[in-house]
């Protein structure tokens, strides 16, 4: 083991509203009552990791909204993917969906959303972020306080150890082509499959497909409360059953909840629809106040879109340090 590897770390100078270590989640933990968790935007997480040759499921930093500042203790290779949060590396703009070499002592700051969309970006480091493995994952389970960094959100002063690869491959800057990314946008129209209780609440289903909704302030990694036209209240009382991120629950008050990564794995509210997996990255980029709508789709589309995203991740980034190509990717300030 090299001493330089042991001392490498990322220091948090400012965390923004929520900064956590996340990986691809705990797919087999639901049976223990543990949320699947992991990155809200799994695609961006995988892309950030692929940009630096990590395993796509490896733990990385989930950066939320903005107001974030990080310092690198030593020279390392980073990959940034997801929302454009106006990242600057030592005051030089750094576009997302690119890798970059950072020098010892350099600072990465992210002010916040540049355009009309985006809420979460992922920072991967070539090598391995120190994260506590628990219940089949290394991500931070905020509701129960385990995994990640001491089971909690990162705050100013925290130092995350990084085990760098013994041989730092100084490849040219990599970038992730636009045509291999999900169609991120403002006011996304998320595609739905009907849920198990869709027929019990036909009016709610009809309203869901015609109205525009806004993400409530009372939203978190567990789920988004959706503000929109009043859906009819109901008195359906069901036994709890297993649910999934993407499920849209209708509580008795009629205000829909879109379950996200940290949702409890069981719930008793009727599930009238489920957002297809391929559109969850779009949902993950929403912040309180953002708008969205829904459209019905079919299983074939859900399957095709998911396969397409898997193929994009397999294809990986482009390896070319030509300035022209970087400009095409929006990587040059």
């Amino acid at each position, binding site marked *: 083991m090299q001493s330089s590897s042991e001392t490498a770390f990322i220091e948090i100078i400012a965390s923004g509203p929520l900064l956590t270590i996340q990986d691809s989640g705990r*797919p*087999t*933990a*639901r*049976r*223990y*009552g*543990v949320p699947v968790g992991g990155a809200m935007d799994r695609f961006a997480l995988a892309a950030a990791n692929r940009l630096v040759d990590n395993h796509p499921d490896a733990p990385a930093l989930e950066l939320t909204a903005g107001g974030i500042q990080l310092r690198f203790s030593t020279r390392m290779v980073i990959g940034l993917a997801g929302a454009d949060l106006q990242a600057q590396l030592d005051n030089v703009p750094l576009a997302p969906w690119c890798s970059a070499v950072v020098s010892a002592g350099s600072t990465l700051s992210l002010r916040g959303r540049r355009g009309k969309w985006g809420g979460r970006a992922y920072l991967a480091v070539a090598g391995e972020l120190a994260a506590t493995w*628990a*219940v089949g994952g290394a991500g931070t*389970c905020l*509701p*129960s306080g*385990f*995994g990640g960094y001491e*089971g909690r959100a990162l705050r100013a002063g925290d130092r995350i150890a990084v085990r760098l690869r013994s041989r730092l491959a100084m490849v040219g800057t990599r970038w992730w082509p636009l045509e291999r990314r999900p169609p991120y946008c403002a006011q996304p129209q998320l595609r739905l*499959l*009907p*849920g*198990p209780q869709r027929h019990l609440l036909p009016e709610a289903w009809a309203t869901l497909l015609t109205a525009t909704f806004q993400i409530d302030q009372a939203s978190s990694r567990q789920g988004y409360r959706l503000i929109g036209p009043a859906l009819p209240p109901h008195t359906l009382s069901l*036994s*709890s*059953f*297993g*649910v*999934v991120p*993407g*499920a849209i629950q209708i509580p008795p008050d009629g205000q829909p909840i879109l379950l996200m990564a940290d949702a*409890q*794995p*069981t719930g008793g509210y009727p*599930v009238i629809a*489920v*957002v*297809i*997996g391929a559109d969850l990255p779009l949902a993950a980029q929403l912040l309180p106040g953002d708008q969205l709508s829904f459209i019905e789709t079919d*299983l074939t589309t*859900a*399957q095709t879109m*998911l*396969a397409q995203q*898997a193929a994009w991740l397999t294809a990986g980034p482009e390896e070319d340090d030509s300035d022209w190509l970087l400009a095409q990717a929006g990587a040059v300030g």
Partner: protein
Amino acid sequence: MSVWIDLMGEAALLVRWSAEAAAAGAPLAVTAALQRNLPPGVIDLVPAIDSLLVCFDPLATDRDQLSTQLTELARHPPLTALPVGREVVIPVHYGGKDGPDLPEIAAQTGLTPTEIISLHTATEQRVIMIGFAPGYPYLGWLPPVLHLPRRKTPRVAVPAGSVAIAAGLTGIYPATLPGGWHLIGRTELRLFDPTADPPTLLQPGDRVRFVAL
């Protein structure tokens, strides 16, 4: 036997049974059968009171074949092959400040607190599901006299270890959580430990005996 199978998105199927089939143990029997011989692509099984969520990798699963297999299995759950289940003893401090709702349950049921404790400890209860919070077990079933609706006003903070009843079931709070069940006692056992494997003290199918301290 009435069975419903619905998609829960493209990566999960929700199997639901009638109350009778559920009470006979269909969700646990089918869970056990699937665990013995996990179909290709299936990632996780979430048994619940009258349902089972089967989660799979949609890019590695023949959904139609899985659905057919589940339908067949769900209609004819191998109830006789239900695993015996581990026996777990849970010591409980009943009543007092650990079980503040005991007097109220006594008033509602016409039983004395001692009779309630006797009934609760005399009934062997099976872990039907883990849910609500990490390691939170739902155990059933209680004798009909102890079937109570949830409290009208839930508590903001139920202390960790609290043993509570509602809707014919016993629950145990693994951590301090909000909750609407009636608190009858408290155990000092740790129900959820993220550093342990498995992380939960109880698993679906376990047989639990409560012992009064």
